[in-house]
């Protein structure tokens, strides 16, 4: 940790907040987490008193019900387990919410002129008129409505086995979902959710996900180091932990 880092309040905040994440994860999963223990500890221990700014992220696009769904779903798609923290701990929900305010989420990066043929075969690529913001709004409502039809509980209220079962059915095309998914195909919704969850698990932390670089640490990706002149020819495990664009170290 350089003096420059110490003088940077934002970096200081990040370091402290990142330190907390693995602790929470270990407690919530009850697992010792070999990956977590192997992660080099930050040079400074976290302070007992958290800064006021560390309060939970408030979504700006998703409603409270949608937010509960997103948090529950990403925790099943990439769960916290023996491999280490999952997408929830990595901040994927915050990442996805922040993405909803980018041109991507309103379809502005895509060619969106009609006529549309939503029933075109998959090899014709994306042919839906729907954009990510709409797909989340419609898809979450549909999944919750379908979930409630079983036992009155929204997706977020189901036990994890039921949540996994529902997600598997969506992934397979949701043939039994009936009228609940009249407005959005289950597969389109599922694929978007899974893609964005993986993005939130593996992106640079600058985008709001991969907090503490837990996704990178799990697989051994060194992030923004981007200099392997001395490593290119070797059959050896790369020994250095990940760094982020902002200079955080895992």
């Amino acid at each position, binding site marked *: 940790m350089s003096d420059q880092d110490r003088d940077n309040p934002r970096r200081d905040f990040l370091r402290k907040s990142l330190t907390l994440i693995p602790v929470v994860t270990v407690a919530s999963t009850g697992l010792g987490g070999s*990956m977590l223990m192997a992660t080099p500890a930050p040079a400074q221990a976290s302070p007992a008193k958290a800064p006021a700014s560390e309060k939970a992220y408030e979504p700006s696009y998703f409603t409270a019900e949608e937010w509960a769904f997103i948090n529950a779903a990403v925790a*099943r*798609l*990439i*769960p916290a*387990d*023996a*491999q280490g923290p*999952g997408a929830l701990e990595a901040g994927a929900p915050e990442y996805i919410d922040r993405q909803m305010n980018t041109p*991507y989420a309103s379809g*502005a*990066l*895509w*060619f*969106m*002129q009609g*006529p549309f*043929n939503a029933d*075109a*075969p*998959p*090899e*014709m*690529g*994306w*042919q839906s008129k729907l954009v990510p913001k709409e797909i989340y709004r419609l898809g979450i409502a549909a999944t919750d409505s379908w979930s409630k039809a079983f036992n009155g509980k929204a997706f977020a209220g189901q036990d994890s086995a039921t949540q*996994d079962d529902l*997600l598997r059915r969506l*992934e397979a095309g949701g043939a039994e979902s009936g009228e609940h998914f009249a407005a959005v195909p289950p597969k389109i919704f599922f694929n978007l959710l*899974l893609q964005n*969850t*993986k*993005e939130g698990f*593996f*992106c*640079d932390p600058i*985008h709001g996900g991969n907090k503490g670089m837990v*996704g*990178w640490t*799990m*697989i*051994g*990706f*060194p*992030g*923004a180091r*981007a*200099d*392997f*002149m001395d*490593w*290119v*020819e*070797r*059959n*050896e*495990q*790369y020994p250095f932990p990940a760094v982020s*664009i902002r*200079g955080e170290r895992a």
Partner: protein
Amino acid sequence: MATIMKKVDAVIVGFGWTGAIMAKELTEAGLHVVALERGPMQDTYPDGNYPQVIDELTYSVRKKLFQDVSKETVTIRHSVNDIALPNRQLGAFLPGNGVGGAGLHWSGVHFRVDPIELRMRSHYEERYGKNFIPKDMTIQDFGVSYEELEPFFDYAEKVFGTSGQAWTVNGQRVGEGKGGNPYAPDRSSHFPLESQKNTYSAQLFQKAAADVGYKPYNLPSANTSGPYTNPYGAQMGPCNFCGFCSGYVCYMYSKASPNVNILPALRQVPNFELRPNSHVLKVNLDSTKRKATGVTYIDAQGREIEQPADLVILGAFQFHNVRLMLLSGIGKPYDPITGEGVVGKNFAYQNMATIKAYFDKDVHTNNFIGAGGNGVAVDDFNADNFDHGPHGFVGGSPMWVNQAGSRPIAGTSNPPGTPAWGSAWKRATADYYTHQVSMDAHGAHQSYRGNYLDLDPVYRDAYGLPLLRMTFDWQENDIKMNRFMVEKMGKIAEAMNPKAIAVLGKKVGEHFNTASYQTTHLNGGAIMGTDPKTSAVNRYLQCWDVHNVFVPGASAFPQGLGYNPTGLVAALTYWSARAIREQYLKNPGPLVQA
């Protein structure tokens, strides 16, 4: 009303490799040159600045440097009986946008060409007989030979700062045991730089390929193996295998690009002007339709501007060149029913197959390490280096490990049968991300009567002009070749003794998948040749019908190559520029009499 600018000697549409090379050559000849690039200004600094460029989400996933399809895309259909649909999100191919074009975000595999591929039809007819070529296969000769192009390949490599190992130089064998390619044609000089280091994955491929009797060699790479200064005085630093190569601006000044290797020299000359954010709508012709008077474009503020010029160079991406010709009424549009017409004819692509091998944790391939052009390849099944007679297909394929750097969002892969999510996915991804080898058969793709380009009757771009329509599908010859290559490459994969293998090859009856990345190596549509009835441009890339329009680029290839196209694109552009400088400017008119 369009604002009319002062007339210039030459206007260039697009500032990628071909536009930059033409700009340099024509300014050297003393012409006043304006280049119009529809995308923004971009350069190593600030666009490729470390660490902001080391951002997979922004670059690879959200496609920052690629064509803006919200404004213009292509439509695609599999046959004339289908209704074409727009390519709404880029998938199979990734054309560039902005200064540098695809030359800014490419990988850097920098080949020449196998000489027989320049005379594809003649060669196959001579060796296998006329009946060997399927009836609807429309392959042709380029109309130029390797020997004619050799000095231009040589010069382009010196401009690009290419790393590699020669097999022979002026007939002298120099590359044996050093990573040279025994199938490579003769060269007039060595590569400017020695081969790049090989990743561990490439070393595994090298050993396995040799074990099964193939002849491995080092890929020629336009990523530097050391510091370099090119003939234009442009400086490059050594590549450090950062792994953010294809899809990114090279922060190390190590990957050749128009921005690093040519633009610095053009900035020094007063007779060159680059205008970014200038979207060309059409080439303007005079009343005879035999001569261009300039181009019309939309500037950054949305104003319509007319730029008069004596010479027009279409230096845009392959299919944009074809579309501009069709929108401008240059050349006769191709008709797949009659087989007549030339513009849009012989649209061809690449015929890829990939095998992934997964290893235990004692094999550290460290896939985050990489450089776009580096690797080890074999040419035993490329071009016509083996007897095609018993196999009944046309075309060949180099095979290689080209570890360009795999990043976690889009670059992880797991053995077949692994779930896409949940704890099992997590475990496999953690187990295999740094322990796998991906190898490709980078197959040549032939041209066919039914694969072509024209204007779409339904969909339009942001300026109200028709989109380009691709009519394209895989043919029986393509599937046959693909399956053959998978079998041959499979031997290499098996010799590596991996824990698991995944094969991504083509199946009988499979249609072209517009959503799955293959390569950005699109060819044809404005092909070169010796006969105006069967080609759109002559052997100097000059339009047969409008003599002051030249069309460099892979749009001139009558069919796709086994190798990556950029080396041949660059050499042909220098070849064409030489003809303009030494012949055309002295006596403007057709360089070849029809």
